[in-house]
């Protein structure tokens, strides 16, 4: 989006903006040819013919229809029935399940818990990931090793991460024993015992596991910032926070979009930690929608009611990620 880089009332970075604007016009020109090329390239490959083309997409489409799209449609239709695994017959009950959910305190708490945890999970790994990326962006051997360390939790199983943190968070766990042995016994507490602590602990675990991923996405974005832009900024005395605010932040906008949307989805489907570390406790404080659908569906076998919850979850995730993409795309700039 040309011109977005230019912000009025900021003469500190004036020269940078001129350079930025120049490269933007180049980008627009390049973009034009790229579009023309893409349009031409859009034209059919001679390797595909009318009767062979569907053969390429067919098998994947069938599998996807059968085990992703059909289940989604079925979830919608189950949500209008009183289907229960234990009874062979089910009947149409209209919007009854949704009406039930309005007065279902467990469900309403699950929605609230999901909203709080997701909001924190969208913000914390995102912000810390950007900080880590800025901290470790230099190409030295030491920093390469440190970058690897931050990425290790990303590849570990959620189950493994849950048990490692459980060993740390329980009353006689590592965190409390370390606090005791360094004379900070006053800070010892039940990290999973009160609702706030439990939610905070789950968010901390999620942050620990996903911050490395966010950092890697930001590092890729930082690497793509042209050096001449940063050098020009430096010549102008545009350094420190001004440089971050005016140059780096706008240019890592696509990375912000990616991380935000992925963390949003991650937050809504969070299951392993709340199942293993707290099992939804204490008193439902960490019983999020994902875990509640699991319990209602597979412990109480109430497929109809659980499906209504699944549909609500889907509507929220689809709506929010669309809004997030649209809002965040608006502030993305081209270099």
């Amino acid at each position, binding site marked *: 989006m040309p011109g977005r880089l230019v912000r009025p009332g900021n003469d500190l970075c004036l020269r940078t903006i001129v350079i930025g604007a120049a490269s933007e016009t180049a980008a627009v020109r390049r973009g034009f040819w790229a579009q023309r090329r893409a349009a031409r*390239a859009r*034209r*059919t*490959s*001679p*390797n*595909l013919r009318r009767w*062979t*083309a*569907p053969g*390429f*997409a067919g098998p*994947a*489409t069938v599998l*996807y229809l*059968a*085990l*992703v799209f*059909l*289940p989604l449609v*079925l*979830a919608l239709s*189950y949500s209008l029935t009183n289907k229960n695994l234990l009874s062979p017959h089910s009947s149409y009950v209209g919007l009854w399940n949704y009406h039930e959910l309005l007065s279902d305190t467990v469900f309403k708490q699950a929605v609230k818990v999901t909203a709080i945890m997701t909001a924190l999970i969208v913000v914390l790994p995102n912000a810390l990931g950007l900080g880590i990326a800025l*901290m*470790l962006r230099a190409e030295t051997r*030491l920093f390469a090793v440190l970058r690897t*360390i*931050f*990425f*290790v*939790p*990303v590849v*570990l*199983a*959620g*189950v*493994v991460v849950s*048990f*490692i943190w459980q*060993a*740390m968070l329980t009353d006689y766990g*590592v965190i409390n*024993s370390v606090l005791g042995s360094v004379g900070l016994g006053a800070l010892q507490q039940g990290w999973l015992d009160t609702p706030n602590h439990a939610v905070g602990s789950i968010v901390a675990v999620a942050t620990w596991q996903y911050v490395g*991923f966010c950092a890697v*996405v930001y590092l890729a974005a930082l690497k793509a910032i042209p050096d001449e832009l940063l050098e020009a900024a*430096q010549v102008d005395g545009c350094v*420190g926070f001004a440089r971050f605010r005016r140059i780096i932040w706008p240019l890592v906008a696509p*990375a912000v979009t990616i991380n935000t*949307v992925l963390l949003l989805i991650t937050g809504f489907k969070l*299951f392993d930690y709340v199942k*293993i570390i707290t099992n939804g406790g204490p008193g439902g404080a960490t019983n999020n929608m*994902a875990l509640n*659908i*699991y319990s209602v*569906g*597979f412990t109480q076998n109430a497929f109809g009611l659980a499906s209504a919850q*699944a549909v609500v979850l*889907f509507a929220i*995730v689809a709506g929010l*990620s669309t809004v997030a993409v649209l809002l965040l795309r608006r502030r993305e700039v081209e270099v």
Partner: protein
Amino acid sequence: MTSPLWLGRYRSAFAVVVSAIFAAPLYLALVNVFKPADAIRAHPLALPLHDFTTSNVASAAQLSLVQHGLKTSLIITVGSLLLMVPLSAMAAYYVSRWDSKVARLLMLFFLFGLMLPPQVVLIPTTVILRHLHLMFTYWGVILNFAAYYLPFGVFVFSGFLRSVSRELDEAGAIDGASSLKVFWRIIFPLMRPATASVIVVTALWTWNDFLSPLIILGAAHGVTITTGIYLAIGTYSIDYGQEFGVMFLASLPVLALFLFLQRYFVSGLTGGATKG
């Protein structure tokens, strides 16, 4: 590039301290693999210097849940990949090389699957698999994973195909080779970096997944390594030493894969995410 003054000089030291705090849980998980259970309880953070032992790993490897789980996870991961990689590569070829409304809609249709939480479709999936007599079988889990991760494959492959020259298609077509032959002999080998990324990332996700095998395989019928750990620690209350041994064995394959194929992880996770 310069940094803020307060950071500039001590940047490396600061980064090392932050990383050390971050790595503390990893350190904890690693040192306790090699300590006897009572030493873990007494000194969880100590290095296993005088009481180094490999008996935790050995006894974890003896657990039938672990042996069975590792085998099942391997079968399911490999099976899902064998199904999902060719199918998504071919579908990506269609949506990025065939110019029609249907192809564009199909692309959107696949992309939409990227944001679908598994819990939304899990209940009906079990009903469908039950009808197909695939519930509580390897095939059920494999088909579920292959279908669920297809959008990711289509996304990465179609992003990569944009950079593959179309003249190669033409050359193959002129030689009179069949469409499939041109695809498998010429196009697919060219997509090797994308294939590597898709394989590495999908393998990671299927190996680490907990919810689907828990429901579709059903604990009573079979365990993967993740549900195996869950049962071993949660239900059979093994000792602390064994617990760390089990987690070590479960993580070893992904860590090895990660250390050797690091660039494919990063390009798969970020390239897949940044393109489009």
